[in-house]
């Protein structure tokens, strides 16, 4: 399975290789989608891959060094503003946006990695990435 999380590392653990340790100790696979490391705090968006058990172990391990919050939804679209033009479709690097048979623009929200390309491309400012 796959799980996406926000992760804030505590300042006292900022110099530790927390992510590598998590991988080595639990066998989980981690894809870092975003990382912002500052002297006081580090903020990351992580994608974890593995069995349910492995992911649970990884989450427990990560919690020792910081705060974990599961991402339920990354992308948010205001359907009042969206006219289903399609300016965003080709901007999505992981093909999570497409036009269906009814010519509605569809977002596969669960696949979004939060890159914001679609947000920047939307002429109607109808898309938001929740951070």
């Amino acid at each position, binding site marked *: 399975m796959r799980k996406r999380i926000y992760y804030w590392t505590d300042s006292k653990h900022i110099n530790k290789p927390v992510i590598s340790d998590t991988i080595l100790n639990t066998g989980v696979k981690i894809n870092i989608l975003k990382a912002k490391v500052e002297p006081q705090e580090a903020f990351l968006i992580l994608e974890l891959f593995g069995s349910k058990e492995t992911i649970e172990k990884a989450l427990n391990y990560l919690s020792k060094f910081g705060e974990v919050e599961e991402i339920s939804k990354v992308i948010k679209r205001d359907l009042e503003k969206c006219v289903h033009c*399609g*300016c965003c479709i*080709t901007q999505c690097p992981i093909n999570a946006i497409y036009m269906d048979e*009814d*010519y509605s623009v569809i977002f596969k929200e669960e696949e979004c990695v939060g890159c914001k390309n679609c947000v*920047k491309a939307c002429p109607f400012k109808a898309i938001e990435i929740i951070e």
Partner: protein
Amino acid sequence: MKTIKEINEKIKKGEAVVVTAEEMIKIVEEEGVKKAADYVDVVTTGTFGAMCSSGVFINFGHSDPPIKMLKIYLNNVEAYGGLAAVDAYIGAAQPNEDPDIDIDYGGAHVIEDLVRGKEVELYAEGYTTDCYPRKDVNVKITLDDVNQAIMVNPRNCYQTYPAATNSRDEKIYTYMGILLPEYNNVHYSGAGQLNPLQNDYNPETKSFNTIGIGTKIFLGGGIGYIIGEGTQHNPPFGTLMVKGDLKQMDARFIRAATMPRYGSTLYIGLGIPIPILNEKIAERCAIKDEDIEVPIYDYGTPRRDKPLIAKTNYKVLRSGKITLNVNIDGKDVEKTVKTGSVSSYKMAREVAETLKQWILDGKFLLTERVGKLGRAENKPMKSPITLVKDILSKPPITAPSNITIMEAAKILIKHNINHLPIVDEFGKLIGIITSWDIAKALAQNKKTIEEIMTRNVITAHEDEPADHVARKMSKYNISGIPVVDDYKRVVGVVTSEDISRLFGGKK
């Protein structure tokens, strides 16, 4: 054979057969043209896309004491005031006066806010006269407060619009949306088989069967009229000039937008009913997306005449992907890329459906045109052009990478230049050294050209317009650009001095 009068009688009695252009395709396919022409009375069409060439004439009514308004701003967006005292024209593409807001809230946004019934701030200045003693006025207004708000759009409803792709190695921001590097997407616009002009077109005569001056239409959710052919009208790339009453319009069909790093624009829903008077008209109303040819141009070439990359049709474009044969870095490659629409087919359908319902309800009767659309004309401007090769200082001063830094410094001094392109044995560009790099080498005790040269060099081509090179230099904050030929061989350097000389008048 039917007449518009007969069709209107049927509409009034609630007996008219009205279908959308999409539905007509199926009817003609299943029942044949003859039968379709017999029993279908009206085909409704629709389009919904970015129409920059749109705007609204507003008459604000007179203030007391009265003012002759000259400089006029609505929510800080300038409206043209070179008209009578309290008349103005607000154009959709006008940016905000505040540079921080700029294209994020422009004329189109003012128009949408007015339609939504929102308050808009009017600020106007004028010069005083005996009959207009007032100097300025600042007041909040709504659409209800103004006398007239008449939408008059010089160019709407493109019959077909060429699709766009990008050959450059960087993203570009255009009125066709964001185009990815190396042909990595194709953007298109247009309602294709639902487009009003497309469904009424006679390709043999290059004219329109029923649409003309005076035709009553659906415009922005209200009733509008065709005034005549639009600007740049040139079938099969026909356009329309239309008018409508903003006070009747619905914000669902009048939507302000901002094309990223390009400008503000207005998305408009426009629909036209086509009376099925004969078989010929019926046949054309069955036109399909696959029958409509769409050229794809390279918007990466910042010139008026853009290279044609391929010809396709709306069916392929709407499928979500397309295969192109393109040349990347001198190699011919076949590339399958994603397609994206800039206009909304879903909303175009809604326009055609709404218009159909209006006619079925007896609320909308058809009109007879009072004249045909005027002549086609779309020729280029006779503007002078300066190309890079026109301003190039020749011959190029270049050097190989195995010289010493001292030697490089001497070359710069001897030729009184600041930029030294570094080339390989074939004269091909591999890097560039500037006087700044030499200073840096001294300060950091670097010994070789290889250590200090910039390898990722921004280059220009000798056939590029000088304007484009000036934009590049400003964008990347550089003072000199090596000019290369098709084989990446250096043929010269354009410097900021060359560019300023262009504007300074000393040619």
